[in-house]
């Protein structure tokens, strides 16, 4: 890769007073790649997000966006450089329709003299198209977001961020509140976003969600970086070992398989994953 990475972090540290929240974190995010940030509760994931999203400033270390060193003063700065964050609560209003949510705060308008109103047709059409690009066919953009499933709600937030010019998408625990199948659906959206050339930072505490989609893994534990690996530098079981208490493998196998049943594109992921689980199981038996 000759081009500079979309986002590069070198030895980032953060202290709140005398509390050290994060020390020596290094990783990078390339366009069309998924960087997974793994860590258990209290590992420093939130601090990490806040620094990249511009809500907090790092105490030490450098942050580079497309090769340029930057220091964000506010979330607005980060947004202006194309770094969009999809928080856990998604910033959607459940009682409002899909198209209104999609454009909330940035509605396209028409104007006649002193009167200005929302260009509803345009908003509705774009929302439908953008959701279509994420693989969701919204029949009626007047549908309230509250009536969508959890995964679809995620995709509204992701599609919205992508549409409004995000180059780097930070997803804060997008699968944590979701059921098994919906998690698979969200993983698919992550891949969709990646295929559209976005750099994705996928924050999760579940290595089994991270492994199938990640190109690079940053593991945090108690505020320290446990390592920053490209996918070919680490194996699945190593990744799981590095995480505190990996989740059940069986569950994920089923999870991905069921997701793959509805979507061919996931099928090879599920297969790959199943093989890996078998390998891992074999190895454990060998050890015995």
């Amino acid at each position, binding site marked *: 890769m000759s081009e500079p990475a979309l986002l590069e972090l070198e030895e980032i540290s953060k202290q709140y007073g005398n509390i050290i929240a994060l020390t020596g974190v290094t990783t990078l995010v390339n366009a069309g790649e998924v960087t997974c940030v793994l860590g258990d509760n209290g590992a420093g994931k939130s601090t990490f997000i806040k620094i990249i999203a511009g809500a907090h400033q790092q105490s030490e270390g450098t942050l580079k966006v497309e090769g340029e060193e930057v220091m964000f003063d506010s979330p607005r700065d980060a947004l202006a450089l194309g770094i969009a964050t999809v928080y856990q609560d*998604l910033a959607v*209003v459940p*009682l409002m329709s899909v198209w209104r949510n999609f454009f*909330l705060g940035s509605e396209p308008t028409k104007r006649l003299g002193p009167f*200005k109103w929302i260009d509803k047709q345009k908003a509705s059409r774009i929302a439908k198209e953008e959701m279509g690009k994420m693989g969701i066919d919204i029949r009626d953009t007047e549908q309230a977001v509250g009536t969508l499933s959890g995964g679809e709600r995620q995709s509204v937030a992701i599609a919205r961020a992508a549409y409004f010019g995000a180059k780097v998408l930070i997803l804060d625990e997008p699968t944590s509140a979701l059921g098994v199948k919906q998690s698979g659906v969200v993983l698919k959206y992550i891949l969709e976003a990646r295929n559209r050339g976005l750099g994705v930072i996928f924050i999760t505490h579940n290595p089994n969600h991270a492994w199938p989609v990640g190109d690079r893994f940053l593991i945090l534990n108690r505020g320290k970086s446990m390592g920053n690996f490209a996918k070919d530098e680490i194996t699945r079981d190593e990744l799981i070992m590095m995480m505190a208490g990996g989740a059940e493998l069986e569950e994920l196998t089923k999870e991905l398989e069921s997701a793959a049943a509805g979507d061919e594109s996931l099928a090879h992921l599920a297969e790959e994953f199943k093989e890996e689980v078998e390998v891992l199981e074999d190895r454990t038996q060998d050890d015995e």
Partner: protein
Amino acid sequence: MTTEAVTTESPPSASDERLAYRGPIQRLLVQPEIGALVGAIAIWVFFWAVTVPFGTAGGTANWLDVAATLGIMAVAVAMLMIGGEFDLSAGAMTGATGILVIMLVKDTGELGGAGFSLWIGIPLSLVMALGIGWFNGTLVERTALPSFIVTLGAFFVIKGAKLGFAKLFFETIQVGRIDEGAGYDFWRKIFSSVWTRNDHIFNSRDTVYVGLLVIGGVAILIGLLELTYRRRTPFNSGGLPIAGIGVAAGLVGLFALHATDGISANFIWSVVMGAGVLIGAYGLALWRFEPNADRGTLQLPTDVLRSVGLGTGLVALGVVVGLILDSAEKIEDREIVNIFFLLTEQGLRAILFVGLAIAGLVVLLIAASKARKVSHTSGAVLSLYTALGVTALAFIIRSEAEATKFRTELFSTLLLAALVMATWAVVGLYFAQRRGPDAAADRLGRSLAIGGILLATLGVVVRLLFTTDSELATLVGLTQFRISILWFIIAAVVATWILARTRFGSWTFAVGGSKSASRQVGVPAARTKTQLFMIVAGAAWLVGMLLAFRLNTIQASTGDGKEFEYIIAAVVGGTLLTGGYGTAAGAAIGALIMAMSQQGIPFAGWNSDWRFVFLGSILLLAVLANNYIRKTAEAAS
């Protein structure tokens, strides 16, 4: 680095199987104002039936006037409530702005007014009102205290200030004489014009009225058909001649009915017209819609049969009660029917008859909808049976009732209802309903339905605004429309537009629905809420001006306690108390409901104290009905 890994060719073409198709009519039913609209119609019919002046132009002007001042506030308060806040100072503010403007324009006496002209006083009072709104909003935003508490404080401050200043400056609690202000003649036209309509004679008024109603009704019916049934491709032109015959028969029947007089002629032409409508609708459907392949056979499961029996029994019981109870004791020539009428034998008879008949018909309608789920044939047969029952009732009412309005208007309305029911049943039997969206049909259907509603409304307006020579001879009171009604309409239309179509409207729903989410996506939440408080204050100012110019003298207590009426009107109109959901049109309908009950009760000759009993019941009923309708409409579809 691999990016080729996953490709998704096409979005899943089949829509989510868990979401059943919801037609435009079902979607209409989940609109927040539908419950209120049904309630408004029921209350109108009730007072129309029990009072003499309610349905007349003069009576309408009267209750519309009451609705206007209430409605302007209700619309603004609904916007604020959608934005997630309350304003308890809104009522007191209407009186305060009225007093304020009088103080500003009154002559400078010893401690009297400020002596401004109205040209300065009116804008100045607006600025001060907006200032109070801004203060309310800013305080709520800055302190993050519940608006309930903040505006409760503001309410007491305003209430006290009104009394205090009135006594301090004028040594009375009545602040009077806005007509002393310079520019009074001009501003009176803006805020207190009265439009007397008795001298506007238009003798073919009723022809125009009926014509507009018929055209509007047909447009609505065709629109609903378009929205409900599946289009065929290509259209079957074989249906056109049938439709033509139907339309011709309908028109011939209608004109003949209009031209002839006499029971047998009326009967014949009614039948011709009814047959025309049926044939016309069938022809139209044959032309445009796909036939129904699965009509099913006539099956009536026991539960349906039981409902049919119960419904028929109730209607029959009503008729028997009507026949047994003595109708000799008639109330002759009484203009006003007081509440004790309901305790007389005659009243009891009316209550039992109406109650049993309505209950019976509702049971029959439920049976028909149950039967439709079994087979289309069963549903159609039961609908026709119900339509027959309605027709029979219409004739019983015609032969029994004394008042002309029952003998003619109610009679023809019931017959038309029966006709529409029959038409719907026949089309439903032979043609297939839509199971998916169809943008073209939706657009046409919606335009037809909306156009039809507008035409029918225009017809009603024409009827209200004009008098005929024959009517003038028997007229008692003047028909006076106040300009406040115009302001009310403007407020409702503007607020509806703002909420539905502007960024500010979207932000209002957003800050009420989820403030944190709207902040995160860049909605200026604090500013939006503050502006909403200012809108309420501005509306209170408008109402204050209307009151000041109408009454000339304002009581210090004017408007106090009205804030709950505004909130009730908004809630009756479907606005969610917790914010994020509701419409301005709903609040306007809520205001109509409250005004109708407030004026209808004295019209009926009842003690107006009963109004609060009525009001409370309406609030509870409306909230329950809204809840129920939303749930069933969301569950059914």
